[in-house]
């Protein structure tokens, strides 16, 4: 399996700790090797891109240059969608022209060749070898769990930078969820923006974005939302309670829709516990649904077992009837043959007698 350099991002040990924990849990079990880039720095995210084009490309380039020096030959993987877009934006700029690359080297004051590619964890997992390794480790299929796979914007847009999956209807996470037995629903908000940092800067304008995502997931029959970005997770999971408070005031039904990282659900299918995967520290209660669906899956399995036994019984019964019918038919055929034989013999005897006369 391909080895990667790992860019954790600033939220890896704080608000995104469950993503890190579950990623490490899954990576270890499937032999997905990644080594943290030494002394990496913040990618700058939208704050840098809104401040200056030079800053946008320079901040990620330092970490990429360190990775090139310390972990040569390895592509860079990052779990966070925001980090992914920043790093990839810088890389695409560096690869556009020799002039750009030279400018970047000047800005970071380091040697840099832009040799390594940058992928998100989701993209790294969107690979036959990884999928095969995952399916081999599944001990418990998450059947009956209806998931709305939420990719967010930075994973797929701008398409010219991200160059990953379909920007309007991506499928890579849906495929992974099917692999572990969960049931992805079709819904319209797969790549709709969660509001990102604007949930802090302009909360009044940005809050409806979250509410609409929940609304569409629920309307399409999802039990939960599955994310691939720590900022999407924070905006949805942490702010669900506040949104529910305002819904109650407006006389609307509150949501009860937990959010998970895709790695948490894969880890769960591997037999991991909610504590090992960090599901126990989510803001919106996230454990009850999983237990309910585990019970539902067991009930479903039991019903399927009963149905299979009943089918087998019916099949056996019919097979027995067929065998009896066949035996009856064979016996009749034999009897008829015997009778015909006796008749022929009788006729021959009569013929003989006639001839003698």
């Amino acid at each position, binding site marked *: 399996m391909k080895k990667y350099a790992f860019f954790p991002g*600033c*939220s890896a*040990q*704080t*608000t995104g*700790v469950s993503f890190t924990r579950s990623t490490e849990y899954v990576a270890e079990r499937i032999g997905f090797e990644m080594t943290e880039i030494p*002394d*990496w*720095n*913040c990618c*700058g*995210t*939208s*704050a*840098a*891109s*809104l*401040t*200056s*084009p*030079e*800053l946008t490309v*320079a*901040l990620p380039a*330092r970490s990429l240059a360190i990775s090139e020096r310390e972990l040569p030959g390895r592509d860079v993987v990052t779990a966070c969608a925001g980090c992914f877009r920043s790093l990839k934006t810088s890389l695409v700029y560096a690869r556009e022209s020799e002039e750009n690359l030279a400018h970047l080297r*000047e*800005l*970071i*004051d380091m040697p840099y060749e832009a040799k390594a590619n940058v992928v998100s964890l989701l993209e790294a997992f969107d690979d036959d070898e990884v999928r095969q390794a995952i399916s081999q480790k599944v001990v418990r299929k998450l059947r009956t769990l209806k998931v709305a796979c939420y990719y967010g*914007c930075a994973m797929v*847009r*701008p*398409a010219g930078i991200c160059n990953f999956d379909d*920007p309007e209807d991506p499928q890579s996470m849906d495929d992974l969820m099917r692999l572990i037995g969960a049931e992805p629903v079709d819904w319209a908000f797969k*790549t*709709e*923006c969660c*509001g*990102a*940092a*604007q949930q*802090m*800067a*302009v*909360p*009044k*304008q*940005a809050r*409806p*974005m979250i509410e*609409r995502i929940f609304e569409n997931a629920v309307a399409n029959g999802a039990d939960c939302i599955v994310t691939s970005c720590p900022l999407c997770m924070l905006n949805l999971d*942490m702010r669900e309670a506040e949104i529910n408070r305002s819904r109650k005031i407006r006389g609307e039904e509150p949501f009860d829709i937990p959010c998970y990282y895709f790695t948490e659900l894969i880890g769960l299918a591997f037999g991991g516990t909610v504590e090992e995967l960090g599901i126990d*520290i989510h*803001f919106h209660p996230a454990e009850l649904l999983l237990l309910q669906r585990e019970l539902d899956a067991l009930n479903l399995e039991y019903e399927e077992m009963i149905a299979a036994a009943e089918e087998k019984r019916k099949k056996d019964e019919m097979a027995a009837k067929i065998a009896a019918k066949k035996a009856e038919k064979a016996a009749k055929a034999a009897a008829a043959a015997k009778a015909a034989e006796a008749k022929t013999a009788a006729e021959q005897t009569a013929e003989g007698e006639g001839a003698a006369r």
Partner: protein
Amino acid sequence: MRSLDLTRISPQDVRACQEIASEAGVDVKDCYQCGKCTAGCPLAEGMDLMPREVIRFLQLGAIDVVLDAKTPWICAQCDVCSSRCPQNVDICSVMRAVRQASKRAGKRPVPEADIFDDEFIANVRAHGVSNEQYLAAAFNVKSGHLMQDADNAVRMLTRGMVGVTMHNIEGRAEVAALIDRALAADAARHAARETEGGEA
């Protein structure tokens, strides 16, 4: 859409709008005002100008309307506008360029958005990484929204997601120097363009 006295638009205004477009890497004349950007924008309902209108005012040379607009500061940079534009106008990039031009002109129509980004970069400049808890605290103090997300801060603390420990990288001085170089290069580019514009 408001009325606009086109006779009051000066050649300088038109040039300032063209500069924003060139900074954004777009030709605003490509836009035929179909409105698909606005239809897909998840924040349109909270904006004072629709994304389509920002492009329209740039086409007209109405620089003051554009620089005073809240829209580019409310934009979350999700790129849905650019990705759906049938004419490949990078509206998202225009929003960035307008915002930066607005800031250079000494304006900040949505102070909170400006404070957030400045505090974010200051945090990275000081530590090499973003320390979310200190960023949030600094944002609240500077924006005057002291209690914003206070309940969430408590929830994060009880979950052990954040603490008082400041995360610093070893190369933070390198990062600070990098940020200074990048911002100096940015300023130099704009200064050069202004001189060029003045000569022309």
